[in-house]
């Protein structure tokens, strides 16, 4: 007999992770799938968002309630637990401010990092960003005001003032999925626009795009600003969900997990990125939910997860090289104009033929 399984609880937990990772996957797809910039440092911008939300919220709460203790000390954590849910306005205000600042600061860091890297060639961008992510993690590991290796905890959940934790989580998943919807809408709109056409042109042939008058470095910097900003927002959402952050949450494996989602779902397709994120987070969540009940002790869910992801990627790439949802042509109103022209000339043509 199967042990009891909380289906709604599972869906809420999966939905939250799906939302956060799908935002990351869409942002990576904009960079890699559409513009051809291999970003191996995605986790850095995710981490910036998460740490921004964590530090902003804990320091603000302690300052508002005049607690002298630092947030990483025992007194600090106790004070955060005591005052965290005291004021709905403060909790929601911190949440909103974190989201905005998370987007802007992560975006600006991404934008600034393009400055030294775009001029040296595509491979350097990926490696520089990878190195940047590791540098950031090692910095966080040693920087005491941000909790060093223990990280920061007691981040006040935006709905902490609601007494029922189950309701709190259900409200939060709706917020996360709302952000995913906005991100997907925005990504789809810019993909199917003249801007999206420029992105694909830059991906196909940078030099030719330059010769067609496109300011390639500016285009890439813009995309990295948007992509990093989105990752920052995902980081903020993660920090408030987990209520704590530490440097080990932001290892390079996270970046490769997001790459796996984009490859699985289909490079160059935003909806594919969401599908990829849904599959991989589903595997992750179901293993986390099931394994304790199965009593498997020889192998941890982490290993099984990586094996499943690896097998999935190999199978999908063997049978569907474009991913589960392959790239689609750009849809702009230009094609409507072409269709009406073709209709006209067909009518005109047949008329002329008879005459």
């Amino acid at each position, binding site marked *: 007999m199967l042990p009891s399984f909380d289906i709604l609880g599972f869906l809420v937990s999966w939905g939250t992770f799906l939302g956060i990772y799908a935002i990351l996957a869409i942002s990576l797809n904009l960079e890699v799938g559409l513009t051809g910039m291999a970003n191996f440092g995605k986790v850095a911008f995710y981490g910036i968002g998460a740490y921004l939300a964590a530090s902003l919220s804990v320091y603000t709460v302690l300052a508002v309630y005049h607690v002298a203790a630092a947030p990483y000390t025992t007194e600090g954590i106790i004070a955060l637990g005591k005052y965290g849910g005291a004021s709905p306005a403060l909790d929601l205000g911190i949440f909103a401010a974190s989201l905005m600042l998370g987007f802007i600061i992560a975006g600006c860091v991404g934008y600034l990092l393009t400055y030294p890297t775009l001029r040296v060639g595509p491979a350097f961008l990926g490696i520089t960003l990878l190195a940047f992510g590791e540098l950031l993690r090692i910095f966080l590991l040693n920087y005491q005001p941000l909790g060093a290796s223990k990280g920061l905890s007691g981040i006040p959940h935006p709905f902490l003032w609601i007494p029922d934790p189950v309701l709190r989580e259900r409200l939060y998943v709706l917020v996360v999925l709302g952000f995913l919807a906005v991100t997907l809408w925005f990504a789809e709109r*810019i993909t199917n626009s003249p801007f999206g*056409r420029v992105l694909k042109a830059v991906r196909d042939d940078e030099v030719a795009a*330059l*010769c067609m008058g496109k300011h390639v470095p500016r285009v890439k910097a813009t995309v990295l600003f948007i992509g990093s900003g989105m990752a920052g927002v995902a980081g903020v959402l993660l920090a408030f969900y987990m209520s704590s952050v530490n440097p080990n949450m932001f290892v390079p494996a996270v970046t490769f997990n997001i790459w796996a989602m984009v490859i699985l779902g289909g490079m160059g397709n935003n909806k594919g990125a969401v599908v990829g994120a849904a599959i991989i987070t589903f595997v992750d969540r179901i293993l986390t939910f099931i394994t304790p009940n199965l009593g498997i002790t020889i192998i941890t869910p982490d290993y099984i997860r990586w094996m499943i992801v690896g097998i999935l990627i190999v199978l999908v790439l063997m049978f569907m090289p474009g991913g589960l949802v392959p790239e689609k042509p750009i849809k*702009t109103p230009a094609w409507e104009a*072409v269709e009406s022209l073709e209709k006209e000339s067909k009518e005109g043509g047949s008329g002329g033929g008879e005459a």
Partner: protein
Amino acid sequence: MTKPILEVKDLAKYFGGVKALDGVTLEVPERGVIGLIGPNGSGKTTLFNVVTGFYVPTRGEVWYAGERIDGLNPNEVFLKGLVRTFQIPRLFPSLTVLENVLLTPPRQVGERVLTAPFRSKWEKQEKELARKAVALLRKFGLGEYVRARVSELSAAHMKMIETIRGLITDARVYLLDEPAAGVAYTTARELFTFIKRLRDEEGLTFFIIEHRLEVLMDFVDYVYVLHNGRLLSEGKPDEVMSDPKVIEAYIGR
């Protein structure tokens, strides 16, 4: 000849000790079809690269329509009205023929990231450009390829589209790098006929690097010959072809 639209004055480009260009002065008149020939390594493509902003010259000046353009970036040179093509056509393979043409017009409203999500702001411009692009493709007999992927086209068609996509802008001068390379003799002649047609009908100016002299010489008004980074000879096609210095550079040691 009419007044020059493109002028190169004492242009030099050194790569370390290699003098790829060493003081070249030449001019391209408006509505001209001008050839640029020379043995391999004589500096023809380097000249194009300097003129179109890929290299900053070591010395000298480039003037286009009364404006100095050396030192500008390639995208800025394009925006001034100079289009450059490559020896191997560089179209965008994941875009259709129509989209390759639509990409070209500069400063489109929908190309800005903040207006791109809002279709109503750029829909009218996009449709106008699409009608213009289809009309252009039809005019040159490529109407049936509007929806085709670039990979489905023949080499000659790719080369034609590379040139046609400049026509949707106000570009006046076209720098073509070996347009006849890699196509059959008759196709090469067709391409040059097409170039002449563009000059006559659209009033465009062409500056052409070409190795296939048997094709080039029948179509150009004037030829410059480069050798070791310097101008070896210039003149009308028959004058150049009978110049002993040119014959020696091409055949002799």
